[in-house]
């Protein structure tokens, strides 16, 4: 299988999502000449070095000018290239938001924006380097697809699916650091737009995207010990969201808790909520995420704990739903 996909489980061991993407990009460099890579003075940190080694002519370093970078990618797409624009979330999705909006989404260009640091991944870098708003902002752009893989294996598969298997504007959010793998096989059944059921359950549904998926799965095991049977959905594609699986959850479980590493305004939680209320369901929902504030200084781990993106935070939310229902 390694030949087809460019990786094996073993080869991805100890890799971050970022690393896995870089590894697959190196393969893609050799496979498809149309793929070009843009960076804003961050080639190494955005894991573009291996691509560069295979195709130096097809890498454009735009310097610290992300707006120029994004619009230039649109131009490359007009001329028939498949541009991959790699950068930090806050720069791609926020600094260059207007360029994403007009030149990529409105113009409906086949450009893949790859954010190698989103949420609180930049940790002590502080709020200017965090990106808690990207999902909320990108969701409001018509024509865009938003994918947030939850592990190295999923990233490796998603990278290929997004860059070569998908045509159109796409925002891919990578996990920056090394996180535990959630799959024990390369054959995960990844399909853009279709959430993956990591654990079946009938009491409560936990829906997460990106880095918090591992935490969510871990928490489900803790809940199990307390007699709460939690369903865990990996909503790797936030837009278009998997409406069917959400509605199934409203019918088959007693509530939903969403977990995201971003502002609860406009992100995954609200995307799930929209599906629920647009279909006249009255399922209770709790959103775990950043409650509309910029973060204090701290490491990513400390900030997660502080802002309730934690086992405790999730369990509290679950119990607040189930306790209510017992009344």
């Amino acid at each position, binding site marked *: 299988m390694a030949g087809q996909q460019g990786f094996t489980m073993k080869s991805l061991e100890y890799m971050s999502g970022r690393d896995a993407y870089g590894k697959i990009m190196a393969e893609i460099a050799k496979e498809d000449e149309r793929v070009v890579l843009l960076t804003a003075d961050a080639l190494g940190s955005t894991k573009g070095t291996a691509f560069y080694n295979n195709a130096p002519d097809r890498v454009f370093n735009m310097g610290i000018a992300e707006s*120029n970078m994004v*619009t*230039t990618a649109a*131009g*490359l797409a007009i*001329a028939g290239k498949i541009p991959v624009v790699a950068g930090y979330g806050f720069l791609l999705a926020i600094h260059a938001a207007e360029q994403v909006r007009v030149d990529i989404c409105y113009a409906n260009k086949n450009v893949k924006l790859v954010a190698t640091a989103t949420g609180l991944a930049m940790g002590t870098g502080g709020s200017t380097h965090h990106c808690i708003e990207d999902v909320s902002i990108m969701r409001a752009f018509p024509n865009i697809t938003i994918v947030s893989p939850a592990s190295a294996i999923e990233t490796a598969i998603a990278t290929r699916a997004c860059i070569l298997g998908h045509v159109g504007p796409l925002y891919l959010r990578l996990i920056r650091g090394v996180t535990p793998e959630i799959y024990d096989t390369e054959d995960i059944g990844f399909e853009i737009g279709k959430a993956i059921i990591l654990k079946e359950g009938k009491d409560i549904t936990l829906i997460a995207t990106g880095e918090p998926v591992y935490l969510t799965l871990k928490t489900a095991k803790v809940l199990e010990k307390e007699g709460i049977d939690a369903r865990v959905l990996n909503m790797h594609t936030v837009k278009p969201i998997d409406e069917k699986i959400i509605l199934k959850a409203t019918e088959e479980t007693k509530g939903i808790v969403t977990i995201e590493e971003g502002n609860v305004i406009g992100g995954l939680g609200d995307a799930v909520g929209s599906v629920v209320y647009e279909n006249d369901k009255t399922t209770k929902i709790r959103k775990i995420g950043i409650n509309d504030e910029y973060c204090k200084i701290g490491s990513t781990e400390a900030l997660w704990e502080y802002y309730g993106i934690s086992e405790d935070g999730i369990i509290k939310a679950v119990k607040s739903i189930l306790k209510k229902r017992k009344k």
Partner: protein
Amino acid sequence: MEITESIVTKLKKIADENRELIVKVAQEAGGGHFGGSLSEVEILTALYWGILKVDPKNLTWQERDYFILSKGHGCAGFGPILAKKGFIPMEDLKTFNQLGACFGMHTTLKMAGVEHPTGSLGHGLSTGQGIALSLKLDKKPNRVFVLQGDGELNEGTVWETAMSASKFKLDNLITIIDRNKLSMDGPTEEIMPLEPLAEKWESFGWAVKTIDGHDMKSLLDTLNQVPFQKDKPSCIIANTVKGKGISFMEGKYQWHYGYMDNKQYNEAKVELG
């Protein structure tokens, strides 16, 4: 193409006809960006009748030159030209700004011949840069022309591209600046001074020429010379008059966007006819 006197005369006449059609279309639709649509007439006429390698029957022709109207609000001046050249149907001109029309205030991808939708200023040069980069990668000789407004040059993204196009040695990228010296609130030199403009572009590594943007011979001769220098992108500062052709509009920033009353329209028709 050799620029003969008869070609210059012919294109001057076409420019006058284009001007008349542009005013008719915008006025009869209820108003438009007269100022900037009139200042760019000779530039667009020179490009589409004298310089650009394009084929209205083959929009994806791999050998074509690319044109980006970065000052997207000049669409009222662009649509009629695309219609006369056979890109969009002449009948579509009557649908300017109507629900679902292909032809409106700013360029859209619904208009055949438009490479990229514009309207938000400061994006066109960067878009053109992307196309030019691809052409260089593929070693193709096609050129990319980008028409910018001068007020548009206030946008920082323009200067990001001015830097990078020079770095990438994109001598297949040419920008023409419709230097009518007026933006929406008043003269550019009062709102946000641009001078010394030629020196700015030169210092960013571009080869620059400054010409009269209504002198057809000058336009054709200059456009015919691109690239002005190998390995350098080219910049043509075309000095123009906003509202050119209608005496009560010429040089008046208030006519950036507007609608004429009957008296004014009658006067205009006499001047243009």
